Structure formats: structure tokens, C-alpha cells
């Protein structure tokens, strides 16, 4: 069972944060492990997931995409249909409820594309908590709609104008806030990154995705899927859909953002090109230069634009259980348009990366084989940005 007692997945994970935060993380871990087994907590969380988030999300057979590609049958796990439009809400509702049980009155979040920020602001609103969201100024510009949404939901949005002005710097600021306010605040990390217990906790809250797929797929076909694909930035939607299948004979593929090219600074393919390192509280793979400074990154998708990755993914790459690949901005954009036209589903640019890799492999597979894509979010937030890209 991973992580181990100290929060490690093999060599990866742990807690690399200032000593000040350790008691808060220990308290959080203890509360989480207790509440995980607590009936009242689970009844409440399941009720929220069902009646507020709208779970279970459908598993949809993408017939036109399948016949267009002429190979494996393609199914979409429709996390885009969740309340707030992505899988992020599974985790934020879980953590917000945890925060409430722990007696915290305020939530702090970092956000890239803004989906996690919106999902945290939403959870705060419905549970009556205060909320501050940190967002890189560059991301706030390219995802303006989500900034408005967060503010409408009552959250304070702090635009971070330091460093690369993206998720990495927003995370730094959120951590700093947490270090000074942990007595009354809970930091809702949006991915399977950060110090222990976050990678475990976020994975557990997101694994509802994989559990549902297992049941739904069996009902539809009577068997297991052959492939499951998900995009990987920090890696929470991927971890959520992979985790319940780790012990099954299902091929798991994580798709990273290959950006413009695999030259330094032009992509976010952390598992392919990163080195072991410490960023935001965990030992994992990190995009860094030869001197150990964290590298700038690029992706057309703000939600994948991050130089780190969850430690459990680093571990699953090392054991070989999950195959990690990457697709370029261009390929992701093509998939974005194709899915929109063929299925009437506008995917988030993040999720479009998983679709893009499917386009590469599905035609080469037999019609008997089945492939599930985690469609982690909807693309409304990206429409303005994509419309502004001339080449498409």
C-alpha cells in the first residue's frame, strides 16, 4: 500500500516544507485518516457528490469518433459534466468538507487554468467558508472567464505577478499564505502534488472516477477496458481514473503536454524530460536546469503548464505500470476541434491532450479493443483562447 507511513511512493513523495508547517500537515493527515473511515463524513460527502456535483458522471460511447478512426471502441468518462465543469470538484468538495470537520474557516487554493480555483470557490460557497485563490497573472489573462466566476462565487482572487506568472508561482504564494494562516485556514491543493498527505488524499478523492468507470464499463460490456488514457499535468484526473485499475490487466497511458517542442522551456513533459527533484513539498520528477533551478514551461493549456508532477506518477513510471507519453500543442488543438465537430463535445484543452494521443493509437487497434479517455473537463473556458489562435 502506497504511500508508506512517511508519505513515500518508493523513492518519491515525502514532506519537503518549512518546519512551521509540519504540525499542520500531521494534524491534517490524522484527521483525514479518521474521517476516511467515519460514517457521517462519508454519508455527507457521498450526498454532495450525488446531488450537488451530479455523480456518477456518464460513460459515453463515442460512436462517431470511433468510426472516424476505424479501430478501437472509444469511450469518454464525462467529468466535463460535473458541476463547475471538471473533475476538480471531486477533490475540492472532499477537502472542503475535511476542512470544515477540522474547524477551519477559510480555504486557500492555487490555480492554473482556473478550474481548481472555481471548484474551490464553489465548495467554499456551498459550505459557508471563506476563500482566497492565487492565480498567475499570465493565467488570469488567458482564463479571464474563470477569474470572473471565482469572484462571483465570493472568492478573493490574488493575481501573482512574480516569476513565470503561472501555476508554479501561484502555488508558491498559496503555500506562503498557508504557512502564515494554517491555524484557521486549509490549503486545498488541486492536484496529486505537494507534501504528504496531499498526494494520497487528492488521489483518494479523485479515485471515485476510476471506481465508477469500473462499474459502468462492466455494465456496458461485461468486461474491463483494454486502455485508459488521461492527461497529466500535476496528474490528479489521471491518478483518479488509474488508481482503481492498478492491479488489473488494463493498459494505462498518461499524456503530458509536449508544448511547442521538447526543448527546455517549451513544454511540460515532466515525466519524459524532468529530473528527480523537490518542488512544492515533494520529491518527484521536476523540470529543472543543470543547476537545479526550476525551468520555465510552456503549454497551450494553462492547466498542464507546470514543471512538476505528482510523486505517485513518478513512481508508476519507474515501476513501468503506467506508460507516459506526450503530445504537442498542435496535436491537442486538432483533437480539440475534432471532438467538438464529431461528438458535439468541446473538451478542455487539458483533456484534449488525452484525446490527441487516442487519435494516434486507436486506428492501429482492433475493433474488439476498448479504450476509455478521461474527459476531465469541458472547454468553454478555452473557447476564447482557441478562437484567438490564428493557425487553426
Amino acid at each position, binding site marked *: 500500500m502506497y504511500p508508506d507511513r512517511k508519505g513515500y511512493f518508493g523513492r518519491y513523495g515525502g514532506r519537503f*516544507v518549512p518546519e512551521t508547517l509540519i504540525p499542520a500537515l500531521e494534524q491534517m493527515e490524522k484527521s483525514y485518516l479518521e474521517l476516511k473511515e467515519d460514517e457521517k463524513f462519508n454519508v455527507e460527502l457521498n450526498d454532495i457528490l450525488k446531488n450537488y456535483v451530479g455523480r456518477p458522471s456518464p460513460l459515453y460511447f463515442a460512436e462517431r469518433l470511433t468510426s472516424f478512426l476505424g479501430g478501437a471502441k472509444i469511450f469518454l468518462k464525462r467529468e466535463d459534466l460535473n458541476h463547475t465543469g471538471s473533475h476538480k470538484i471531486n477533490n475540492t468538495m472532499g477537502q472542503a468538507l475535511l476542512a470544515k470537520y477540522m474547524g477551519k474557516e477559510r480555504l486557500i487554493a492555487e490555480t492554473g487554468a482556473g478550474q481548481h480555483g472555481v471548484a474551490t470557490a464553489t465548495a467554499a460557497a456551498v459550505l459557508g467558508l471563506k476563500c482566497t485563490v492565487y492565480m498567475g497573472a499570465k493565467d488570469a489573462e488567458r482564463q479571464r472567464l474563470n477569474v470572473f466566476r471565482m469572484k462571483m462565487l465570493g472568492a478573493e482572487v490574488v493575481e501573482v505577478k512574480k516569476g513565470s506568472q503561472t501555476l508554479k508561482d501561484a502555488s508558491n504564494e498559496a503555500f*506562503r499564505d498557508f504557512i502564515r494562516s494554517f491555524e484557521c485556514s486549509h490549503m486545498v491543493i488541486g492536484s496529486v502534488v505537494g507534501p504528504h498527505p496531499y498526494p494520497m488524499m487528492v488521489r483518494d478523492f479523485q479515485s471515485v472516477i476510476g471506481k465508477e468507470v469500473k462499474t459502468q464499463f462492466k455494465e456496458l460490456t461485461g468486461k474491463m477496458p483494454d486502455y485508459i488514457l488521461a492527461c497529466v499535468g500535476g496528474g490528479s484526473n489521471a491518478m483518479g481514473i488509474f488508481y482503481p485499475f492498478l492491479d488489473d490487466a488494463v493498459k494505462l497511458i498518461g499524456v503530458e503536454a509536449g508544448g511547442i517542442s521538447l526543448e527546455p522551456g517549451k513544454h511540460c513533459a515532466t515525466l519524459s524530460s524532468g529530473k528527480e527533484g523537490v518542488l*512544492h513539498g515533494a520529491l518527484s520528477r521536476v523540470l529543472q536546469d543543470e*543547476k537545479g533551478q526550476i525551468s520555465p514551461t510552456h503549454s497551450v493549456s494553462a492547466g498542464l503548464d507546470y514543471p512538476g508532477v505528482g510523486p505517485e506518477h513518478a513512481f508508476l513510471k519507474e515501476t513501468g505500470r503506467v506508460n507516459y507519453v506526450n503530445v504537442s500543442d498542435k496535436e491537442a488543438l486538432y483533437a480539440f476541434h475534432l471532438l467538438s465537430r464529431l461528438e458535439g463535445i468541446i473538451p478542455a484543452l487539458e483533456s484534449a491532450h488525452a484525446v490527441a494521443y487516442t487519435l494516434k493509437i486507436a486506428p492501429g487497434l482492433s475493433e474488439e479493443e476498448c479504450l476509455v479517455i478521461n474527459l476531465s473537463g469541458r472547454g468553454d473556458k478555452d473557447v476564447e483562447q482557441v478562437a484567438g489562435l490564428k493557425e487553426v
Partner: protein
Amino acid sequence: MSQLRERLNGLKKSGEMGVIAFIMSFLPDKKLCLECIKALEQGGCDVLELGMPFSDPLADGEMIEKFHHRCVEKGLSLKEGMEFAFEVRKTVSMPLVIFTYFNPVYNMGIPEFRQALEHTGAEAVIVPDLPLEELTRLTEYGLDVIPMIAPSSPQERIKEADKLNPAFIYCVSVRGTTGMQVLPEEEIKDYLLQVKSSTSSPLALGFGISSPEQVRVFKGYADAVVIGSLLASIIEEYEAKPELLPGEIERTIRNFKKAGLSF
């Protein structure tokens, strides 16, 4: 016994409040930085804590973060920082401690870092993003580490820090990052007394120390204060008047030292 331990133990015994100065390598430029360091020594500074640049300095507030970023933008990193430390060592004789985030160290390799540290003559290392559990990554290579303790630390963690037999324990005086407002006086005093009851190591109080008055208040509770953000803001303020900078640094340290003298 190392010069660092000797100095801290001396302070503890005398009841005098020592001054530890944090300076970021290379700023405003290499030459002026060395002059500032000389000025620190002339002002009576007890220990120099030399900062190594990192792109994502989580434990630092705005002032010092800006300094990290300025260095990183110039392409400076741990390797250059350690070469600079070697020059510092040749220039001044006060004990030297290296302050660095963990990733550059991990990237360099811990045995290589240890070698570099020995070469510079620095006697210990402070790594703000390594909590006690992870310090063994350094101590197993024989590195002398300075553990950090916070107002939130329970008694058993103070005892863990004590087990490392450090030259001193760095007691963070805020719930937050460097440069922040310190907690109320009485709260800090209680906290320092609590730390004291679990360890015989000298204690340095840092993060948010900005006036000699604080030295007077906490004398007898801690054995030294660490000044960082204050010096960074002086460096920034006097950048345009570089000829005045060393004098201003020296004057500042002298004021702190005067406030810390035993009666």
C-alpha cells in the same frame, strides 16, 4: 570545536545577544556584496549566513524572494554561490553558514555539496525546506545542519532538533515567511522558554527581526538574532548610492550589537 560552535557557546555563556546576518550572495553585485560582508564584520557581526539563490524560495517573504530571483535571472546558482562563499571566507574571519533550498543541493549531489562546503570553509548549512525528518539526508554525509523550529513545533520536535547536537537551533519568530511581523512579545518569550527547556543548544531567533529594540526584549531568551530582510531592504535602498552602503550596513549591525551587550 568549530569556530561557529565556539562563538555561539561563548554568546550563550556571556548572556550577550549575538547577531547573525543573512546576506544573499552577489547582490547588488559581487564586489559590493563582499564590501557589505566586510562591513558586517566591522560592525561586530557574529555569524554570516550566506544565501544561495533559488527560483522558488517558499520560506521567504517578498523582499528576499526578489533577491533570489535577481540572482537566478543572472544565471547564478548554488555552484557560483559556493565559489563566492570561498572568496568570502578569504575576506572575513567570522563563522560562515550556508543557507540554501534543497533542490539545488539535491541536484548537485549531496556528497559533491559536502565537498564544496568543506572547500569554502563554511561550517554548517541551513535548508529551510527540509523539516527535521529529512535532515538525515544531509547528516548521513557528515554535514553539520542547523535545524529550524517554529512556534507551532511541539515539544517532541524540539527534542528531535536537540538530538542533532547542532551549533545552534534556529527559532522562527513568526507564523509565516521571512520579513513578516513577529508574534506578540510575550508569546515569543513563552515559546523561547519552552524551546530552552528541551535543549541546551544555543538559540537564534529569526524571521522578522527588524529593530535593536527586539534584541533588548529577547535578551536572555535567545542567544542571537538573525537579521535578513532588513539588510536586504538597506541594500536595495542604497543601491543607487553604493559608496554609502557599507557604512550603513556597519552602522546597523553596530546598533544591534550594542543593544545585545550584556550589562
